[in-house]
């Protein structure tokens, strides 16, 4: 059984006891524990179930590479699934529950999948997809859905807060082990601005656990003194609980700081995402131990040898009383020695190598530990816990020589450098035969903007596998990074380490070497996704040669741990099956983040109201207080309608249309884009931008204009007013202001840069109110001021003046067909002007109206709307707007494109009005069907609806649409099928439904 030892625990405060629960069971731990060490201290070896077969799973590792220990934590707004228990620091009141089991962790119905495992081989899901559809739908899918998924999705909005933090540094060092510290010493002394981040709460990594001696000091003392030295340097910043998660182009990097995960009651953001731009990045990310592939290597109680050592030294926790060590290298002997020193039993060290005589091996022998050379594990005995191992010859086929009782197995297949951050942005790897691992190829680093490398690997992450080598390599890396970043100071002498002599490891990818299928089908490569040696071998037999394909076929390395333990072993297994050298098979792609980070941290402050700043007109608050039914338009919110009393939104819209046509309506038109175009060449410039002629417009007059892209497609429209000889004011659509402003700048700066024109976006400088309806002039005259008579201000005139004491500019333009004045006042006066109009308008039946009323009134008049009648494929000619396309101009944007044969094709659908024969409203987006079917057997179409409304003015459904040869087919009835299977018939009519002579607006 796993238990707390009486002594040791270098990270523990034994005086402080903390209570926590696991699956509702109350347990105790100490300050300094991780959830993992605390669970082991309480003999909770079973922590979860695997994804596919629901096999019982115990802890395999002690850090970020742990594949099995994932739990749900917290509750309500603070609930979060898939929390890795090896990286979760214990706190008082922590409540965790295991995942992926039903009904309970101890008794799981899904475990029957394991019995069916021979029917669920590699590529199971792919193979199922090709079965007949009913079988898939009724048998496999419900089964897989029930079985799938780790954890539960939260049901409430995240109650924590998060933030982003920007940093610019000379040298970013990721990893605070002795390599990172040594690199920081060098870079800091050289005078570089250094940011050193470490993912755990502790500095020094695993060197103190491994008994490193540095500069004559023990590991803990050297780490403490070095951290103090670094903290005293003004140019060095240290951050623990901060993981370097990703390296991106040109020295961009992300780091993930966990501020309150270990202390949830603390104020402030939970996580902070560091957005770093570094001149140089040092990856001192250490290495990860590899499991060995022997049968039963997934039974709880089988753990990486380094992790067994970590739990013993750091937390005073033993995995078992009798631990068998199985290894292919010297390092695992440290575990045996540590356990023996702690008074625990190590019945045997199984060393797959035929010979071993390094100093650690000798030390183990001298302590009386039995060392069996050339031996391996045939299979582990036990179900939910290890009860023993059967020993075999590594060189054989698995015949059992001896059975040894034990309750834990410490395994080591060698160490792989953590090359993730090196590789994220293109750093290349080389295969190191001596260590049987991939390490960074320093001659092919990720390249920065200057074409030079910007990432320097350091220490174990660079394949330096002993304390002495790590320190030399990392100090050099820190110095090199500082120099490349421009620091010129002296680095002085680096720290030196003392290392026991180790003999070479021997690659062991299969234990025993000639293992039978039966054994291979019990050897786990990927613990979380249940991928076994036999699965990868099957994939190879079925023709999968590329590691990227094999990964997807078998799901190897695709779990939340992203194959940190399984990748190299899987690769080696595939290479073995293909009879190819490992480097020829290659690696899968390393992608950020290094381990999963919270979605909250990625979003940072950008959530809720801060997600996207809202544009508000000066009258916004009035609308909000007076029944506005809001709709988003660009970054604005506009009132769709102003709902009164018990009426519905639809009833409000109909009322607003009728009132505006009969009395007086007010529209907040402030959101319309307003661009000032000024300069001696302004007229010439606008002639290029608009399809019609703007240079001939007289000061004091307005003209409606169309803008096209160079492709010829209609892009925006609006009324242009000529202010003086050199100045125009161009109105754009609400959503188009920024886009059209950028469009103008682009052409001015990149094509006609010698033309003397300036453009300024003044959209938000003015509030604009459309005063619309038969009583429009009356209310303005009542307020008093400038002459707004038909004689003084005729249709399409504009004038400056005052109304009711407000400085204003009045445009006599109409988008409704009614007598209409659009009046701009300074934005600061907008609300007061709005209030004045409402007060003065009371006797004339004034009512504000919203965007839907605006839409209906313009549709009744046959005016097009950008985004309804246009969709990026429509040219003005499609919309019958030939009158707005100048024939006199030599050129304008889109002119040449509109001459292309596809644009002049007479079969392009053309704009018409549509009047339903039964008075109903055609559904939005409906298509008109034609004769026959196309080559896909679908009904041919001959048109589509672009705008459709119930017109209260006409008391019937009206629509606009694009129809094949439409303008030539007036009076013809066409059919629009609806989704419910019925259809609606509509007569093709002139799109101007109301007041075609314009008698109402020209008064």
């Amino acid at each position, binding site marked *: 059984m796993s238990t707390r030892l009486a002594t040791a625990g270098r990270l523990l405060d034994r005086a402080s006891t903390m209570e926590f629960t696991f699956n509702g069971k109350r347990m105790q731990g100490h300050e300094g524990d991780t959830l993992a060490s605390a669970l082991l201290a309480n003999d909770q070896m079973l922590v979860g179930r695997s994804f596919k077969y629901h096999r019982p799973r115990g802890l395999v590792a002690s850090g970020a590479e742990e594949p099995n220990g994932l739990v749900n934590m917290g509750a309500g707004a603070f609930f979060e699934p898939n929390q890795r228990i090896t990286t979760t620091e214990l706190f008082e009141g922590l409540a965790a529950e295991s995942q992926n089991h039903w009904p309970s962790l101890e008794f799981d119905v899904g475990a029957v999948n394991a019995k069916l495992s021979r029917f669920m081989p590699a590529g199971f899901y792919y193979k199922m997809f090709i079965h007949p559809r009913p079988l898939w739908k009724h048998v496999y899918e419900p089964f897989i859905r029930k079985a799938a998924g780790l954890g539960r999705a939260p049901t409430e909005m995240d109650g924590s807060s998060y933030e982003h933090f920007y940093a610019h540094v000379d040298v970013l060092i990721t990893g605070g082990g002795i390599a990172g510290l040594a690199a920081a010493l060098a870079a800091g002394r050289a005078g570089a601005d250094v940011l050193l981040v470490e993912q755990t709460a502790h500095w020094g990594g695993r060197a103190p656990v491994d008994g490193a001696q540095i500069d004559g000091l023990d590991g803990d003392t050297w780490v403490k003194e070095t951290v103090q030295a670094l903290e005293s340097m003004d140019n060095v910043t240290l951050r623990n609980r901060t993981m370097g998660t990703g390296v991106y182009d040109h020295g961009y990097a992300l780091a993930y700081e966990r501020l309150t995960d270990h202390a949830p009651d603390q104020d402030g953001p939970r996580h902070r995402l560091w957005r770093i731009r570094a001149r140089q990045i040092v990856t001192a990310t250490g290495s990860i131990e590899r499991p060995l592939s022997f049968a039963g290597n997934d039974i709880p109680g089988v753990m990486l040898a380094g992790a067994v050592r970590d739990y013993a030294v750091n937390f005073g926790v033993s995995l078992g009383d009798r631990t068998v060590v199985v290894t292919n290298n010297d390092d695992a002997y440290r575990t045996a020695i540590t356990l023996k020193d702690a008074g625990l039993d190590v019945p045997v060290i199984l060393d797959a190598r035929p010979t071993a005589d390094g100093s650690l091996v000798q030390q183990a022998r001298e302590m009386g530990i039995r060392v069996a050379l050339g031996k391996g594990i045939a299979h582990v005995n036990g179900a939910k816990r290890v009860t023993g191992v059967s020993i075999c010859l590594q060189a054989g086929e698995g015949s059992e020589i001896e059975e040894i009782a034990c309750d834990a197995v410490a395994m080591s297949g060698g160490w792989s450098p953590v090359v993730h951050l090196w590789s994220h942005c293109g750093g290349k790897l080389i295969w190191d035969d001596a260590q049987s691992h991939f390490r960074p190829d320093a001659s092919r680093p990720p390249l920065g903007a200057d074409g030079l490398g910007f990432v320097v690997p350091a220490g174990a992450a660079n394949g330096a596998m002993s304390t002495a080598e790590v320190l030399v390599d990392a100090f050099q890396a820190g110095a090199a990074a500082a120099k490349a970043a421009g620091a010129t100071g002296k680095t002085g002498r680096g720290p030196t380490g003392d290392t026991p002599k180790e003999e070479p490891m021997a690659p062991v990818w299969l234990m025993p070497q000639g293992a039978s299928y039966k054994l291979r089908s019990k050897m786990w490569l990927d613990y979380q996704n249940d991928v076994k040696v036999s699965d990868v071998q099957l994939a190879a037999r079925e023709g999968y040669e590329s590691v990227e394909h094999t990964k997807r076929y078998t799901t190897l390395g695709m779990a939340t741990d992203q194959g940190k333990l399984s990748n190299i072993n899987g690769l080696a297994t595939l290479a073995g099956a293909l009879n190819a050298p490992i480097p020829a098979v290659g690696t899968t792609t390393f992608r950020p983040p290094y381990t999963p980070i919270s979605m909250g941290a990625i979003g940072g402050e950008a959530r809720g109201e801060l997600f996207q700043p809202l544009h508000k007109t000066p009258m916004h608050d009035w609308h909000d207080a007076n029944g506005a039914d809001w709709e988003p338009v660009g970054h604005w919110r506009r009132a769709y309608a102003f709902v009164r009393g018990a009426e519905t939104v639809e009833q409000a819209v109909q009322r607003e249309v009728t009132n505006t046509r009969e009395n007086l309506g007010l529209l907040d038109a402030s959101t319309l884009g307003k661009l000032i175009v000024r300069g001696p060449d302004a007229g010439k410039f606008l002639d290029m931008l608009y399809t019609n002629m703007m240079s001939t417009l007289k000061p004091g007059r307005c003209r409606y204009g169309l803008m096209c892209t160079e492709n010829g497609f209609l892009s925006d429209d609006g009324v242009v007013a000529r202010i003086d000889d050199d100045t125009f004011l161009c109105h754009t659509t609400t959503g188009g202001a920024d886009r059209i402003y950028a469009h103008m700048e682009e052409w001015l700066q990149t094509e006609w*840069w010698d033309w003397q024109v300036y453009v300024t976006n003044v959209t938000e400088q003015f509030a604009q109110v459309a005063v619309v309806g038969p009583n429009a002039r009356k209310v303005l005259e009542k307020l008093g001021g400038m002459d707004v008579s038909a004689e003084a201000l005729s249709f399409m005139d504009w004038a400056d003046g005052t109304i009711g004491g407000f400085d204003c500019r009045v445009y006599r333009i109409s988008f409704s067909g009614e007598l209409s004045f659009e009046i701009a006042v300074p934005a600061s006066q907008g609300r007061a002007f709005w209030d004045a109009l409402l007060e003065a308008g009371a006797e004339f039946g004034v009512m504000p109206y919203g965007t839907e009323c605006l839409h209906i009134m313009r549709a009744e008049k046959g005016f097009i709307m950008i985004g309804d009648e246009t969709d990026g494929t429509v040219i003005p000619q499609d919309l019958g707007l030939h009158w707005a396309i100048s024939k006199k101009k030599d050129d304008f944007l889109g002119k040449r494109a509109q001459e292309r044969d596809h644009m002049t094709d007479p079969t392009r659908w053309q704009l018409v009005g549509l009047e339903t024969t039964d008075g109903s409203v055609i559904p939005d987006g409906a298509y008109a069907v034609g004769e026959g079917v196309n080559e896909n057997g679908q009904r041919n179409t001959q048109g589509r609806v672009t705008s459709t409304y119930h017109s209260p003015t006409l008391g019937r459904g009206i629509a606009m649409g694009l129809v094949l040869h439409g303008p030539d087919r007036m009076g013809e009835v066409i059919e629009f099928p609806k989704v419910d299977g019925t259809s609606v018939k509509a007569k093709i009519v002139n799109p101007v439904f109301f007041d075609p002579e314009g008698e109402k607006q020209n008064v």
Partner: protein
Amino acid sequence: MLTLECPYCSIQADETELHAGGEAHLKRETVGSLDNDFEDYLFMRENPKGVHFERWRHVAGCGKWFHAARCTMTLEVFGTYSAQTLAPPKDLREKISTKRPGWTWRAFS
């Protein structure tokens, strides 16, 4: 995330401050051009593995358009320069030649 130096502000701008504007040094074809020439202007773009010339706008900064010469393979930036020119500056072309001998791009080399 790239960084490019805005030649107007002389600051090293993050990609998020910039707006990518596609290929640089396009010659506008318009009324009177042949269909093929006009289609080339509208649609045909270089897609090199190596030296490339692009338009960028410092949209969250000074608002100016500028040109950048960079390597699409390594993301090395050879230089940035004014958009108000018909060809890459000579010194920039020479700099590229020292780093990528024998490079060509459209009519330039």
